[in-house]
């Protein structure tokens, strides 16, 4: 029984990371109506920024760690906004397939930049979590797990409040529904899209630090699999829906962790994607997917 709880908590922690990444996918999809497949690679870049700060520059204690975390998040944020400006904005009125292919191109570009600078050998990321964790009975909970879950819960509460109770958040909701009508209200669509990329990428930055602290091997392909899983989580929860991404991420993480523990570690990914297929067969819009009950 105690091992079950320990797998469950590992799953929730992993799922929280998926949820943070999934938020970036789902918010960008909701507002710019595009799938930003470079999102996973932003995570990898964030990991390398923090790795460079901590291991190469030696910011490994006290304030240095906070500096490294700050640089990692800021770096992801700027990268996300830059990618949007350079690669996606010129394609605002292009067919969605062109945007999708561009996103895949950006994804490879980022991977190759990392490959060029850091080489293909995985780096050993040293955890930025300074807290040892604790035990409840026989269940050992690591510091990384505690911090991951706590940070994710805080971010999700903060993001929900931001979207529903601030002017910029309302602007995001308006743009996601009708760009033209939002403009008539005085909403600057381009700025709202930039803001969405900034928030999504900053969340990817947070996710990268949590992910690399928990799973410390960092390579140019580190972002790819979590990126795909988080995308799955976003679809699972209902793409475009913020609570959907949160719930989808956590459920996915738990399914993955439990199937690794009880069924087969090799099959766990197949099981995760299998569940996605079943959910989509039953409810094509995902768990929290928006169903439109329009009246004419």
């Amino acid at each position, binding site marked *: 029984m105690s091992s079950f709880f320990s797998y469950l908590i590992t799953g929730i922690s992993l799922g929280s990371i998926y949820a943070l990444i999934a938020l970036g996918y789902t918010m960008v999809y909701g507002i710019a109506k595009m799938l930003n497949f470079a999102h996973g690679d932003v995570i990898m870049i964030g990991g390398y920024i923090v790795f460079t700060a901590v291991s190469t520059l030696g910011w490994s204690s006290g304030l240095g760690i906070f500096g490294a975390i700050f640089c990692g998040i800021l770096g992801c944020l700027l990268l996300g906004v830059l990618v949007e400006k350079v690669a996606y904005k010129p394609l605002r009125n292009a067919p969605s397939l062109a945007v999708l292919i561009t996103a895949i191109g950006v994804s490879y570009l980022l991977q190759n930049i990392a490959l060029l600078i850091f080489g293909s050998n995985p780096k050993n990321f040293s955890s930025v979590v300074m807290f040892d964790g604790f035990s409840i009975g026989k269940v050992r909970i690591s510091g990384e797990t505690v911090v991951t879950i706590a940070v994710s819960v805080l971010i999700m509460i903060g993001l929900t409040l931001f979207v529903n109770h601030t002017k910029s958040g309302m602007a995001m909701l*308006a743009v996601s529904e009708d760009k033209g009508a939002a403009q*008539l209200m005085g909403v600057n669509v381009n700025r709202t899209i930039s803001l969405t990329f900034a928030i999504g990428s900053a969340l990817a930055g947070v996710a990268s630090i949590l992910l690399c602290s928990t799973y410390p091997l960092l390579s140019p392909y580190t972002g790819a699999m979590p990126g795909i899983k988080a995308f799955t989580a976003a679809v699972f929860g209902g793409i475009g829906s913020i609570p959907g991404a949160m719930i989808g991420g956590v459920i996915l993480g738990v399914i993955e962790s439990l199937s690794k523990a009880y069924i087969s570690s090799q099959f766990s990914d197949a099981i995760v994607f299998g569940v996605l297929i079943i959910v989509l067969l039953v409810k094509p819009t995902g768990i929290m997917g928006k169903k439109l009950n329009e009246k004419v």
Partner: protein
Amino acid sequence: MLKVEDLQVYYGMINAIKGVSFEVNEGEVVALIGANGAGKTTILHTVTGLVAAKSGHVYLEGRDLCKLPAHKIVYLGMAHVPEGRRIFQQLTVYDNLRLGAFSLKDKAKIESNINYVFKHFPRLLERKNQIAGTLSGGEQQMLAMGRALMSNPKIILMDEPSMGLSPLLVAEIFKIISEVSKDGTTVLLVEQNAKKALSIADRAYVLETGKIVMEGKASDLLNDPRIKAAYLGE
């Protein structure tokens, strides 16, 4: 107040608006009438910047709007109730109204505008917390109008406010348009329902395939035999 000069609009190769000029003076209700596809909606979209003009000018109180992005227009005091209402279906009635006041900063002003809207549209007050997509067609039209009024416009453009509504609701909507006009807001009304539009307008322009073919006082147009034959079904 609003002056449109020699406006030309193209959709690809198609010349949708062929040199239209008209003007709306302060305090007036001006109707733009015409059949389906005459270009009425295109003109409104060009005026508020959602569609770019090929040539020509749109002046609001002397300021050329053609160079401005659409989201700046509302700050100059012009609101647009778009065709098909285009309310934010997934947000509540109240949030839709708050978005209507996006261009305002003063909280007290926003509050008084909300009260103004609820006074004219008591139905919206009853459904304040309801998701807008679940409202009836008439209520959605009221919400679209209320949302536009939230920005304190000097001039309001309304695109087919009577579309798809029952005669009773059409009468109610037109009554509210008259009230809004009496409160000092200038109105540019685009309508297929020529009879109703002409009955509340001061002046009107008749649009046919991208050109203005007639203009004059609304009461004169109502009695014009050509208008009667083509638009009033008499």
